[in-house]
């Protein structure tokens, strides 16, 4: 047996180093010699721990490196990478002292695929919504033509609210419609839950339509409106929803599920309201038609009276004419019976001085004077 090993001497520079010392030293050397760098590789063996930290390896054809991405860093990402996904990572090479393992602490992770992780998460959520029928165009509800109360789900101090207020004040101002602000956090931690809670409250607010949105922002800022949870809350809203996420180029999940997608909050306010000036013109038009309608109606009545009058006088005329013809006919017959007509045919009438007609021979003794009526006059005569 030699001298017993001095455990404490092992910590000195002259003796053996402790494992801890070696790993710490290695870590210092590696971190100093390999400052944070971009690395590309394929993701393998991905595992998300309950703590929220992600563990996986990056590999290529010949090597692989253990990686960790802490929850504080991966929280900003819309979705975890999938197995075999090609990624770019911004990483700090280091030694994980507990295990003496060489590893990368990943600060940023980008997929090399089109659109990256955002796209991946978006497509996954979209597929889920599609499967549940939430993207069916037939689901889209009609907006009320003359809304009384318009809910605005947005940040109380964002530009979106001011833009919406301005448009509504111009087009369809109170008391025609009232704006009801349903305050929600639209970005950062807790934004999803806040927007979902605001959407769920719509049913209690006696509103006709809701505008959900925010002014523009980066893809990350808009992520709240790409959340499947928010999209489902939009679909479940008690009133038609106009999404106004303020990003003309990217369509969000919220846009897809909403009853109407507006490119900006101002456009959403325009879509939600009629234009007072146009409605006034329409009213004037209706007033004209109303007046014309009545005069048309009364004109019809007057026309009918006129027609009735015409028919009445027409009938009278006919009657008169008919009576006239009758009279003529009767007249002709009367005429035919007239004694003058008989005389005209050559007959004569004899009358005595008193005018009595003398019809018989014995009324004509010799010497009697009488008057003879012929067609063109009277003759004094005496019986021989």
């Amino acid at each position: 047996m030699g001298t017993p090993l001095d455990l404490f001497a092992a910590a000195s520079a002259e003796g053996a180093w402790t494992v801890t010392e070696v790993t710490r030293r290695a870590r210092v050397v590696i971190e100093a010699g390999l400052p944070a760098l971009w690395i590309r590789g394929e993701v393998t063996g991905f595992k998300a721990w309950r703590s929220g930290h992600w563990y996986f390896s990056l590999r290529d054809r010949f090597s692989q490196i253990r990686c960790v991405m802490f929850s504080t860093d991966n929280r900003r990402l819309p979705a975890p990478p999938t197995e075999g996904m090609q990624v770019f990572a911004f990483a700090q090479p280091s030694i994980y002292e507990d295990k003496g393992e060489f590893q990368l602490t990943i600060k940023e992770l980008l997929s090399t695929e089109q659109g990256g992780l955002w796209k991946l998460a978006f497509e996954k959520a979209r597929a889920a919504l599609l499967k549940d029928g939430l993207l069916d165009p037939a689901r889209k509800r009609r907006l009320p033509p003359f809304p009384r109360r318009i809910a605005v789900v947005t940040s109380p101090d964002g530009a979106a609210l001011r833009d919406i207020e301005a448009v509504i004040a111009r087009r369809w101002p109170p008391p025609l419609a009232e704006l009801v602000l349903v305050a929600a956090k639209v970005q950062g931690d807790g934004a999803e839950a806040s927007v979902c809670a605001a959407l769920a409250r719509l049913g209690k607010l006696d509103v006709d339509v809701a505008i959900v949105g925010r002014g523009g922002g980066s893809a990350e800022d808009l992520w709240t409106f790409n959340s499947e949870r928010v999209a489902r809350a939009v679909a479940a809203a008690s009133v038609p929803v106009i999404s106004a996420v303020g990003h003309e180029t990217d369509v969000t999940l919220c846009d897809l599920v909403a009853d109407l997608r507006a490119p900006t909050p101002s456009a959403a306010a325009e879509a939600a309201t009629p234009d007072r000036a146009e409605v006034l013109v329409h009213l004037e038009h209706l007033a004209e038609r109303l007046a014309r309608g009545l005069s048309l109606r009364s004109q019809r009545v007057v026309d009918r009276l006129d027609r009735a009058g015409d028919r009445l006088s027409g009938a009278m005329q006919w009657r008169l004419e008919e009576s006239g013809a009758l009279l003529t006919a009767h007249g002709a017959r009367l005429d035919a019976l007239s004694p003058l007509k008989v005389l005209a045919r050559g007959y004569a009438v004899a009358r005595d001085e008193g005018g009595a007609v003398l019809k018989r021979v014995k009324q004509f003794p010799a010497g009697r004077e009488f008057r003879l009526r012929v067609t063109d006059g009277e003759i004094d005569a005496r019986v021989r």
Partner: protein
Amino acid sequence: MPEFGEQLERLEAIVRQLEAEDLDLDAALKLFEEGIERLRAAREQLTAAEVKVKKALKGDGPSR
């Protein structure tokens, strides 16, 4: 007062009826009078507009 939308819908119906249906003068006059009344109310609603934004902050709906 009825909502603006209802008001306008009824007014439009009255105009259509007055234009299309064969009404006696009495019925037409009655419709016309109702139409004028609704027109007046609708105009009033449109013109009596004053900007005020009601804010329903955290957890409370409209106060009533």
